[in-house]
Protein backbone atom coordinates (compact mmCIF):
# COMPACT_ATOMS: atom_id res chain seq x y z
CA UNK A 1 0.00 0.00 0.00
CA UNK A 2 1.17 3.55 -0.70
CA UNK A 3 1.36 4.65 2.97
CA UNK A 4 3.85 1.80 3.55
CA UNK A 5 5.94 3.10 0.66
CA UNK A 6 5.98 6.58 2.21
CA UNK A 7 6.92 5.20 5.61
CA UNK A 8 9.76 3.22 4.05
CA UNK A 9 11.13 6.37 2.39
CA UNK A 10 10.82 8.48 5.56
CA UNK A 11 12.57 5.78 7.53
CA UNK A 12 15.38 5.42 4.99
CA UNK A 13 15.92 9.20 4.98
CA UNK A 14 16.28 9.26 8.76
CA UNK A 15 13.11 11.20 9.53
CA UNK A 16 12.68 11.04 13.29
CA UNK A 17 9.85 13.49 13.95
CA UNK A 18 6.43 13.41 12.27
CA UNK A 19 3.96 16.20 12.98
CA UNK A 20 0.39 15.56 11.96
CA UNK A 21 -3.16 16.73 12.05
CA UNK A 22 -5.13 13.56 11.35
CA UNK A 23 -6.78 12.91 8.04
CA UNK A 24 -8.60 9.77 7.00
CA UNK A 25 -6.25 9.56 4.02
CA UNK A 26 -3.22 9.57 6.33
CA UNK A 27 -4.65 7.06 8.82
CA UNK A 28 -2.35 4.17 7.94
CA UNK A 29 0.78 6.30 7.59
CA UNK A 30 0.15 7.88 11.01
CA UNK A 31 -0.22 4.42 12.52
CA UNK A 32 3.00 3.22 10.86
CA UNK A 33 4.89 6.26 12.20
CA UNK A 34 3.42 5.77 15.69
CA UNK A 35 4.52 2.14 15.68
CA UNK A 36 8.06 2.99 14.50
CA UNK A 37 10.37 3.21 17.50
CA UNK A 38 12.78 5.46 15.60
CA UNK A 39 10.05 8.01 14.91
CA UNK A 40 8.10 10.29 17.18
CA UNK A 41 4.62 11.15 15.94
CA UNK A 42 3.44 14.48 17.31
CA UNK A 43 -0.28 15.26 17.18
CA UNK A 44 -0.89 18.97 16.53
CA UNK A 45 -3.88 21.18 17.27
CA UNK A 46 -3.39 22.98 13.94
CA UNK A 47 -1.13 22.40 10.94
CA UNK A 48 0.64 25.71 11.62
CA UNK A 49 2.25 24.13 14.68
CA UNK A 50 3.91 21.58 12.42
CA UNK A 51 5.94 24.29 10.72
CA UNK A 52 7.34 25.47 14.05
CA UNK A 53 7.99 21.86 15.04
CA UNK A 54 9.88 21.17 11.81
CA UNK A 55 11.90 24.38 12.14
CA UNK A 56 12.87 23.59 15.73
CA UNK A 57 13.74 20.02 14.81
CA UNK A 58 16.09 21.19 12.06
CA UNK A 59 17.72 23.73 14.38
CA UNK A 60 18.39 20.73 16.61
CA UNK A 61 19.72 18.58 13.77
CA UNK A 62 16.70 16.31 13.25
CA UNK A 63 14.76 15.59 10.08
CA UNK A 64 10.99 15.72 10.18
CA UNK A 65 7.93 15.64 8.01
CA UNK A 66 4.45 17.10 8.29
CA UNK A 67 1.22 15.26 7.43
CA UNK A 68 -2.00 17.09 6.73
CA UNK A 69 -5.15 17.25 4.65
CA UNK A 70 -5.48 19.88 1.94
CA UNK A 71 -7.61 22.09 4.21
CA UNK A 72 -4.58 22.41 6.49
CA UNK A 73 -2.58 24.17 3.78
CA UNK A 74 -4.67 27.26 4.45
CA UNK A 75 -3.48 27.19 8.05
CA UNK A 76 0.25 27.35 7.28
CA UNK A 77 0.48 30.18 4.78
CA UNK A 78 2.03 32.93 6.90
CA UNK A 79 4.49 30.65 8.67
CA UNK A 80 5.75 29.31 5.33
CA UNK A 81 7.31 32.77 5.14
CA UNK A 82 9.69 31.73 7.92
CA UNK A 83 10.54 28.51 6.08
CA UNK A 84 11.49 30.51 3.01
CA UNK A 85 13.35 33.31 4.78
CA UNK A 86 15.35 30.89 6.91
CA UNK A 87 15.72 28.24 4.17
CA UNK A 88 14.45 25.52 6.45
CA UNK A 89 14.15 22.16 4.69
CA UNK A 90 10.53 20.99 4.83
CA UNK A 91 8.59 18.03 3.48
CA UNK A 92 4.82 18.29 3.71
CA UNK A 93 2.62 15.38 2.64
CA UNK A 94 -0.85 16.58 1.76
CA UNK A 95 -3.80 14.25 1.23
CA UNK A 96 -6.14 16.00 -1.17
CA UNK A 97 -9.79 16.78 -0.76
CA UNK A 98 -11.96 19.01 -2.89
CA UNK A 99 -10.61 17.85 -6.21
CA UNK A 100 -11.56 14.46 -7.70
CA UNK A 101 -15.09 13.28 -6.91
CA UNK A 102 -15.50 15.37 -3.76
CA UNK A 103 -18.82 14.91 -1.91
CA UNK A 104 -18.41 17.81 0.54
CA UNK A 105 -18.68 21.19 -1.19
CA UNK A 106 -16.99 22.96 1.76
CA UNK A 107 -13.76 21.13 0.88
CA UNK A 108 -13.65 22.40 -2.69
CA UNK A 109 -12.44 26.03 -2.30
CA UNK A 110 -9.35 25.17 -0.26
CA UNK A 111 -8.69 21.98 -2.19
CA UNK A 112 -8.60 23.95 -5.44
CA UNK A 113 -6.39 26.64 -3.89
CA UNK A 114 -3.72 24.30 -2.48
CA UNK A 115 -1.25 24.45 -5.34
CA UNK A 116 -1.36 28.22 -6.04
CA UNK A 117 -1.22 29.01 -2.32
CA UNK A 118 1.81 26.79 -1.73
CA UNK A 119 3.57 28.04 -4.87
CA UNK A 120 2.89 31.65 -3.92
CA UNK A 121 4.80 31.00 -0.68
CA UNK A 122 7.78 29.43 -2.44
CA UNK A 123 7.00 25.78 -1.83
CA UNK A 124 7.76 23.28 -4.61
CA UNK A 125 4.63 21.27 -5.36
CA UNK A 126 4.66 17.68 -6.59
CA UNK A 127 1.57 15.62 -7.30
CA UNK A 128 0.99 11.87 -7.26
CA UNK A 129 -1.99 10.18 -8.85
CA UNK A 130 -0.99 6.52 -8.94
CA UNK A 131 0.26 4.06 -6.36
CA UNK A 132 3.44 3.34 -8.36
CA UNK A 133 4.55 6.98 -8.25
CA UNK A 134 4.31 7.42 -4.50
CA UNK A 135 7.62 5.92 -3.37
CA UNK A 136 9.80 7.53 -6.08
CA UNK A 137 8.13 10.95 -5.73
CA UNK A 138 8.48 11.00 -1.93
CA UNK A 139 12.07 9.80 -2.25
CA UNK A 140 12.85 12.64 -4.65
CA UNK A 141 10.96 15.15 -2.51
CA UNK A 142 13.01 14.18 0.55
CA UNK A 143 16.21 14.70 -1.43
CA UNK A 144 15.05 18.07 -2.71
CA UNK A 145 14.04 19.17 0.79
CA UNK A 146 17.08 17.96 2.70
CA UNK A 147 19.84 18.20 0.07
CA UNK A 148 18.74 21.54 -1.35
CA UNK A 149 17.09 23.14 1.71
CA UNK A 150 13.78 23.49 -0.09
CA UNK A 151 10.19 23.51 1.07
CA UNK A 152 8.49 20.68 -0.81
CA UNK A 153 4.89 19.53 -0.69
CA UNK A 154 3.71 16.24 -2.16
CA UNK A 155 0.00 16.30 -2.95
CA UNK A 156 -1.60 12.86 -2.86
CA UNK A 157 -4.59 12.86 -5.17
CA UNK A 158 -8.08 12.15 -3.97
CA UNK A 159 -8.40 9.44 -6.60
CA UNK A 160 -5.49 7.57 -5.05
CA UNK A 161 -6.88 7.97 -1.53
CA UNK A 162 -10.26 6.85 -2.78
CA UNK A 163 -12.62 8.74 -0.47
CA UNK A 164 -15.94 8.80 -2.21
CA UNK A 165 -18.65 9.26 0.40
CA UNK A 166 -19.28 10.04 4.06
CA UNK A 167 -19.96 6.36 4.67
CA UNK A 168 -16.67 5.25 3.18
CA UNK A 169 -14.82 7.97 5.08
CA UNK A 170 -16.36 6.86 8.38
CA UNK A 171 -15.46 3.23 7.67
CA UNK A 172 -11.74 3.93 7.11
Amino acid sequence: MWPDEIHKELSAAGVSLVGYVPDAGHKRLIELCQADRKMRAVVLTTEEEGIGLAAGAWLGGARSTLLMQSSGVGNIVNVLGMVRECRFPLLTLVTMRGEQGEFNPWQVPMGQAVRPVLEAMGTVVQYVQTEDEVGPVVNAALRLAYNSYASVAVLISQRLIGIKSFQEQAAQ
Partner: protein
Amino acid sequence: MKRRDAVAALLAQRNDLLVVAGLGSTAWDVSAAGDSPLTFPMWGAMGQAAMIGLGLALAQPRRRVLVITGDGEALMGMGALATIGAQKPANLTVVVIDNERYGETGMQETHTAHGVDLSRVAQACGLKLVDWKSLKNAIHLAPGPNFAVVKVEAEKIPLVLPPREGALLKARFRRALLGEKADLD
Protein backbone atom coordinates in the same frame (compact mmCIF):
# COMPACT_ATOMS: atom_id res chain seq x y z
CA MET B 1 9.27 44.14 37.31
CA LYS B 2 11.02 45.61 34.29
CA ARG B 3 11.16 43.25 31.32
CA ARG B 4 14.81 43.80 30.45
CA ASP B 5 15.83 43.08 34.07
CA ALA B 6 13.73 39.92 34.16
CA VAL B 7 15.11 38.53 30.89
CA ALA B 8 18.70 39.51 31.76
CA ALA B 9 18.37 37.70 35.08
CA LEU B 10 17.01 34.54 33.42
CA LEU B 11 19.82 34.53 30.82
CA ALA B 12 22.76 35.38 33.11
CA GLN B 13 25.29 32.50 33.04
CA ARG B 14 23.11 30.73 30.49
CA ASN B 15 25.92 28.26 29.71
CA ASP B 16 24.79 25.86 26.98
CA LEU B 17 21.10 26.78 27.18
CA LEU B 18 19.27 26.84 23.81
CA VAL B 19 16.97 29.86 23.53
CA VAL B 20 14.07 30.68 21.22
CA ALA B 21 12.85 34.28 21.44
CA GLY B 22 9.36 35.18 20.26
CA LEU B 23 9.01 38.05 17.82
CA GLY B 24 8.88 41.64 18.99
CA SER B 25 9.77 42.84 22.45
CA THR B 26 11.02 39.52 23.79
CA ALA B 27 13.46 39.19 20.87
CA TRP B 28 14.78 42.67 21.72
CA ASP B 29 14.97 41.74 25.44
CA VAL B 30 16.98 38.63 24.67
CA SER B 31 19.29 40.63 22.38
CA ALA B 32 19.75 43.27 25.08
CA ALA B 33 20.90 40.49 27.41
CA GLY B 34 23.61 39.61 24.85
CA ASP B 35 23.40 38.16 21.35
CA SER B 36 24.35 34.50 21.09
CA PRO B 37 24.43 32.03 18.19
CA LEU B 38 22.49 29.67 20.46
CA THR B 39 19.56 32.08 20.45
CA PHE B 40 17.02 31.87 17.63
CA PRO B 41 15.30 35.27 17.66
CA MET B 42 12.14 35.40 15.57
CA TRP B 43 11.17 38.25 13.26
CA GLY B 44 7.93 36.66 12.11
CA ALA B 45 5.90 33.44 12.31
CA MET B 46 3.94 34.83 15.23
CA GLY B 47 2.57 32.07 17.43
CA GLN B 48 5.31 29.53 16.67
CA ALA B 49 7.95 30.27 19.32
CA ALA B 50 6.79 27.53 21.70
CA MET B 51 6.52 25.01 18.86
CA ILE B 52 10.06 25.78 17.67
CA GLY B 53 11.09 25.19 21.27
CA LEU B 54 9.27 21.86 21.26
CA GLY B 55 10.90 20.72 18.02
CA LEU B 56 14.29 21.69 19.38
CA ALA B 57 13.67 20.01 22.73
CA LEU B 58 12.63 16.74 21.03
CA ALA B 59 15.62 16.85 18.67
CA GLN B 60 18.05 17.62 21.52
CA PRO B 61 16.78 15.72 24.56
CA ARG B 62 20.06 16.16 26.43
CA ARG B 63 20.07 19.95 26.16
CA ARG B 64 17.90 22.44 28.05
CA VAL B 65 15.64 24.60 25.90
CA LEU B 66 14.10 27.93 26.92
CA VAL B 67 11.38 29.76 25.00
CA ILE B 68 10.99 33.41 25.97
CA THR B 69 8.00 35.01 24.37
CA GLY B 70 5.35 37.66 24.87
CA ASP B 71 1.72 37.38 25.90
CA GLY B 72 0.44 38.35 22.45
CA GLU B 73 2.67 35.79 20.74
CA ALA B 74 1.71 33.07 23.23
CA LEU B 75 -2.00 33.84 22.80
CA MET B 76 -1.74 33.46 19.03
CA GLY B 77 -0.23 29.99 19.45
CA MET B 78 -2.14 28.83 22.51
CA GLY B 79 -2.72 25.39 20.97
CA ALA B 80 1.03 24.81 21.30
CA LEU B 81 0.54 24.51 25.06
CA ALA B 82 -1.80 21.55 24.45
CA THR B 83 0.72 19.99 22.05
CA ILE B 84 3.58 20.47 24.53
CA GLY B 85 1.38 19.09 27.31
CA ALA B 86 0.74 15.96 25.26
CA GLN B 87 4.45 15.47 24.41
CA LYS B 88 5.80 16.25 27.91
CA PRO B 89 9.37 17.25 26.97
CA ALA B 90 11.33 17.21 30.23
CA ASN B 91 13.96 19.64 28.93
CA LEU B 92 11.67 22.50 27.84
CA THR B 93 10.67 25.67 29.70
CA VAL B 94 8.32 28.30 28.26
CA VAL B 95 8.41 31.76 29.86
CA VAL B 96 5.86 34.40 28.91
CA ILE B 97 6.96 37.96 29.54
CA ASP B 98 3.51 39.44 30.08
CA ASN B 99 3.01 43.21 29.79
CA GLU B 100 -0.64 42.71 28.83
CA ARG B 101 0.06 44.64 25.62
CA TYR B 102 0.86 44.19 21.94
CA GLY B 103 4.07 46.16 22.24
CA GLU B 104 5.04 46.50 18.58
CA THR B 105 1.72 47.80 17.28
CA GLY B 106 0.79 50.62 19.63
CA MET B 107 0.55 49.01 23.08
CA GLN B 108 -3.01 47.76 22.63
CA GLU B 109 -4.22 45.58 25.49
CA THR B 110 -4.08 41.80 24.99
CA HIS B 111 -6.47 39.26 26.47
CA THR B 112 -4.30 38.98 29.58
CA ALA B 113 -5.30 42.56 30.42
CA HIS B 114 -8.88 41.29 30.49
CA GLY B 115 -8.54 38.39 32.90
CA VAL B 116 -7.20 35.63 30.66
CA ASP B 117 -4.67 33.67 32.71
CA LEU B 118 -2.07 31.90 30.57
CA SER B 119 -0.68 30.12 33.67
CA ARG B 120 -3.94 28.34 34.23
CA VAL B 121 -4.21 27.47 30.55
CA ALA B 122 -0.70 25.98 30.64
CA GLN B 123 -1.41 24.17 33.90
CA ALA B 124 -4.59 22.68 32.46
CA CYS B 125 -2.50 21.46 29.51
CA GLY B 126 -0.19 19.63 31.89
CA LEU B 127 2.76 22.04 32.04
CA LYS B 128 4.39 22.57 35.43
CA LEU B 129 4.03 26.07 36.81
CA VAL B 130 7.17 27.65 38.23
CA ASP B 131 7.29 30.86 40.30
CA TRP B 132 9.80 33.62 39.70
CA LYS B 133 12.03 32.61 42.61
CA SER B 134 12.49 29.05 41.32
CA LEU B 135 12.44 29.90 37.62
CA LYS B 136 16.13 30.23 36.83
CA ASN B 137 16.91 26.95 38.55
CA ALA B 138 13.96 25.23 36.85
CA ILE B 139 15.14 26.37 33.40
CA HIS B 140 18.42 24.51 33.90
CA LEU B 141 17.42 21.59 36.10
CA ALA B 142 13.75 20.90 36.83
CA PRO B 143 12.00 18.14 34.88
CA GLY B 144 9.54 19.89 32.59
CA PRO B 145 7.72 20.91 30.62
CA ASN B 146 7.92 24.02 32.80
CA PHE B 147 5.93 27.19 32.36
CA ALA B 148 5.97 30.64 33.93
CA VAL B 149 4.25 33.93 33.36
CA VAL B 150 6.40 36.89 34.41
CA LYS B 151 4.28 40.01 34.78
CA VAL B 152 6.20 43.11 33.71
CA GLU B 153 5.53 46.85 33.39
CA ALA B 154 4.04 48.07 30.13
CA GLU B 155 6.90 50.34 29.01
CA LYS B 156 8.23 51.50 25.68
CA ILE B 157 11.99 51.08 25.70
CA PRO B 158 14.71 51.34 23.04
CA LEU B 159 14.91 48.46 20.59
CA VAL B 160 17.98 46.22 20.71
CA LEU B 161 17.92 44.31 17.45
CA PRO B 162 19.41 40.88 16.71
CA PRO B 163 20.58 40.01 13.17
CA ARG B 164 17.63 39.97 10.79
CA GLU B 165 18.49 37.44 8.12
CA GLY B 166 16.66 34.18 8.81
CA ALA B 167 19.09 31.91 6.94
CA LEU B 168 21.98 33.38 8.95
CA LEU B 169 20.18 32.93 12.27
CA LYS B 170 19.43 29.31 11.37
CA ALA B 171 22.92 28.49 10.12
CA ARG B 172 24.77 30.06 13.04
CA PHE B 173 22.51 28.28 15.53
CA ARG B 174 23.08 24.89 13.91
CA ARG B 175 26.82 25.43 13.64
CA ALA B 176 27.08 26.48 17.29
CA LEU B 177 24.99 23.53 18.43
CA LEU B 178 26.06 20.76 16.05
CA GLY B 179 29.53 21.90 14.97
CA GLU B 180 30.79 22.62 11.48
CA LYS B 181 29.49 19.26 10.28
CA ALA B 182 26.04 20.89 10.40
CA ASP B 183 27.03 22.84 7.28
CA LEU B 184 27.42 19.56 5.39
CA ASP B 185 24.10 17.99 6.47
